[in-house]
């Protein structure tokens, strides 16, 4: 077991630790706003270090190649937060309750734009009852 392998193993283990943390967080945390922290942060880190490990595995340490992989890391760092941000924003907009694990309507009030499709209050309420997932 040479140095390179040790470094690779280290990165991989760190990666998998974060990934499993993210997943467990996703599963165990109590509500959405808590949960969204776990996967975005943890997995971003986890995946990045996994990729680093792979790069070192394939191209040695310090890596001789691996531009593509590093680009991937960059992208993950760029995009994962944006996705999470948008999602949180969406969750906020769809009035997910902050403190309770409420049953949430997935498309309530989306009719702001489509005026002609605006159903009556009554119907909306009724639909809401029907829509309740699970």
């Amino acid at each position, binding site marked *: 077991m040479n140095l390179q392998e040790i470094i690779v193993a280290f990165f991989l283990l760190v990666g998998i630790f974060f990934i499993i943390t993210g997943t467990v967080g996703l599963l165990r945390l109590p509500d959405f706003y808590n949960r969204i922290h776990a996967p975005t942060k943890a997995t971003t880190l986890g995946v990045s270090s996994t990729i680093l490990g792979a790069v070192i595995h394939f191209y040695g340490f310090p890596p001789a190649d691996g531009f593509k992989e590093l*680009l991937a890391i960059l*992208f993950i760092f760029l*995009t994962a*937060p944006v996705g999470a*941000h948008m999602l949180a924003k969406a969750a906020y*907009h769809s009035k997910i309750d902050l403190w309770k694990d409420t049953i949430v309507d997935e498309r309530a009030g989306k009719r702001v734009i*489509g005026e002609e499709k605006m159903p009556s209050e009554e119907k909306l309420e009724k639909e809401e009852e029907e829509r309740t997932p699970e």
Partner: protein
Amino acid sequence: MISLILHRVTRVIIHILLIFSIFLLLKGHNEPGGGFIAGLMASVSIVLVYLTYDIETVKRFMPISYPAMIALGLFFATGMGLGGVVLGYPFLTQTFDYFQIPLVGEIELATALIFDIGVFLTVVGATLLIISSIGEGS
């Protein structure tokens, strides 16, 4: 519903994405990639722009008629095939050769690339036409 973060990020990565898609297109003959994958890649990146900005902006940004793009793509693909017919080969015959170019060295040029470009254009045109049509249909 404008998200500043999304705007910024999109502005940054859209170029990289498009370049990446061209990269996928060019290396398709030797590594994973190719016209279709590249085309979808480019479409997805432009869809991202659609998601970030509105249709009007995209139109200003990219004044392209998608049906014409489809036609152009089919033209490239078919025209490549017809080229073979004119030269006395069967329809869609491909050829390739290695050229020595000063400074760059030996590179491979294949007619398959023309075909792949046709595929690329058609895929981009069709995908975006579909998505923008629905988006507009609202």
